[in-house]
């Protein structure tokens, strides 16, 4: 019983990290229809930058924000100068794949090949105990962070004027320009928001997953599975998909480690067979 509870909680906290990555990817891939192979790289770069900022400032909060803003800038530059000029998938994949390889090599040059680790912030160290269950405080904190981000994203999308411009751009970008919305700028900001969330997730995830060259492509397929299972462009879908993939992947690796990819992709195949648009996707 304890095994199941602990593993489920681990799945939830991993799902929370996935949500930070996948909510951004859902915007970029599901809504803007850009295949960004470098999205996992944003997560990786976020981790490395957060590590360096933490070494200099000693503040986990500053590390999170600084790394997320820096990654957002990288994303905005990639979109504004290059990606927005290509509307088909093939050039997008080639270009972002190239960026992913460059980012990987750059991190090796700057931070070296040894895995790094970011210490859990002091106030979040330790575990709490409920009956026979002992569980790390930091992992619970990550779940709370993801819930806060989900609420924040929902409020931004539904309640702010920039959110309304974003939805108008997604509904009909040509008509949006026709009433004076600066669509190229709104699109680049949207891409930047996705990158911001991935970079932020990279720092928040670092104390759990570690920081190493290779985590970019370890985590990227999971994020794509979340977006496809949850439904393209749906925030609710990204949330439910992240929990599902997080729990299934964690339990699969704990129970039958040899079949971990099978346990991940089998539920995806089943969902797609029943509902080809994903759980919450628009038809």
């Amino acid at each position, binding site marked *: 019983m304890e095994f199941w509870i602990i593993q489920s909680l681990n799945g939830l906290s991993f799902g929370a990290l996935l949500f930070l990555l996948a909510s951004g990817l859902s915007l970029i891939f599901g809504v803007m229809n850009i295949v960004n192979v470098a999205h996992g790289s944003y997560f990786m770069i976020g981790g490395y930058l957060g590590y360096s900022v933490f070494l200099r400032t000693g503040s986990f909060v500053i590390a999170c924000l600084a790394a997320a803003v820096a990654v957002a800038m990288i994303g905005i530059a990639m979109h504004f100068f290059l990606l927005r000029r290509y509307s088909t998938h093939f050039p997008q994949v080639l270009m972002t794949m190239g960026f992913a390889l460059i980012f990987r090599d750059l991190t090796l040059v700057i931070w070296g090949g040894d895995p790094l680790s970011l210490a859990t912030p002091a106030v979040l160290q330790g575990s709490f105990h409920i009956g026979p269950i002992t569980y790390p405080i930091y992992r619970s904190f990550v779940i709370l962070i993801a819930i806060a981000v989900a609420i924040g994203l929902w409020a931004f999308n539904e309640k702010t*004027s920039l959110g*309304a*411009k974003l*939805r*108008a751009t*997604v*509904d*009909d970008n*040509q*008509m*949006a*320009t*026709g*009433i*004076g*919305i*600066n*669509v190229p700028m709104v699109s680049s900001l949207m891409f930047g928001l996705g990158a911001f969330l991935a970079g932020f997730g990279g720092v928040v995830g670092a104390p759990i997953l570690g920081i190493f060259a290779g985590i970019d492509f370890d985590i990227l397929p999971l994020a794509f599975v979340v977006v496809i299972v949850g439904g393209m462009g749906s925030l609710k879908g990204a949330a439910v998909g992240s929990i599902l993939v997080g729990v299934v992947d964690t339990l699969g690796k704990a129970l039958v480690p040899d079949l971990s990819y099978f346990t991940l992709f089998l539920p995806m195949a089943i969902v797609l067979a029943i509902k080809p648009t994903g759980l919450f996707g628009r038809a």
Partner: protein
Amino acid sequence: MLKVIDIHTYYGDSHVLQGVSLELDKGSVIGILGRNGMGKTTLISSIIGFTPPKQGKILLGGVDITHVAPHLRARMNLGLVPQGRRIFPSLSVMENLRVGIRKQSSGKWTEDRILSLLPRLKERGDHKGNELSGGEQQMLAIARALMTNPSVLLMDEPTEGLAPLLVADIGKIIGQLKDEGLSILLVEQNVPFALKMTDYVHVLSKGTIVHSSLPDELWDREDIKTQYLGL
């Protein structure tokens, strides 16, 4: 207000507009008539900038806007009521109104004035754009364009698919806008409606203007009506 000088517009290889010129004076309503596929909507798209012309010039209030980005044209007082309304479905009625560029301080089309002109929209304020009837969507498309405080309004088939009573309502609104001094370029399939609303009409066929006259004169030209308008 608006001057179109010998524009040529292409969709890929197809040469859709083949040298169209027209002029729209302040406070006047000019009609563009013609069958489907003759280039009426392309003319609107060229003026708003969705499909910029390859040759020719478009002047708005004396300023050359031929190569200006579409979102900046909307800020230069050019308003669009597009074919098919193109209401943003995931935005509420009020969000549809408020999402575009607004110059409320300088212009006379404040949100309150627009809503008093189109009171039905106020009642539907919280509904999503795709929950409205066709007539309400058309009202919303007009209101959305007015929110940008245009001096020139491009209207592409505003009566399309509407019941006669609603067509009369749209006619009343266009009359009011004209009285306010707006210049309107009105593309229509509904010939009797267009002839009633306009000060001058052009007939478009295969990308060129084949007839221009006062509305009454066109009404008497059976040859033109048969050959180019299918009446």
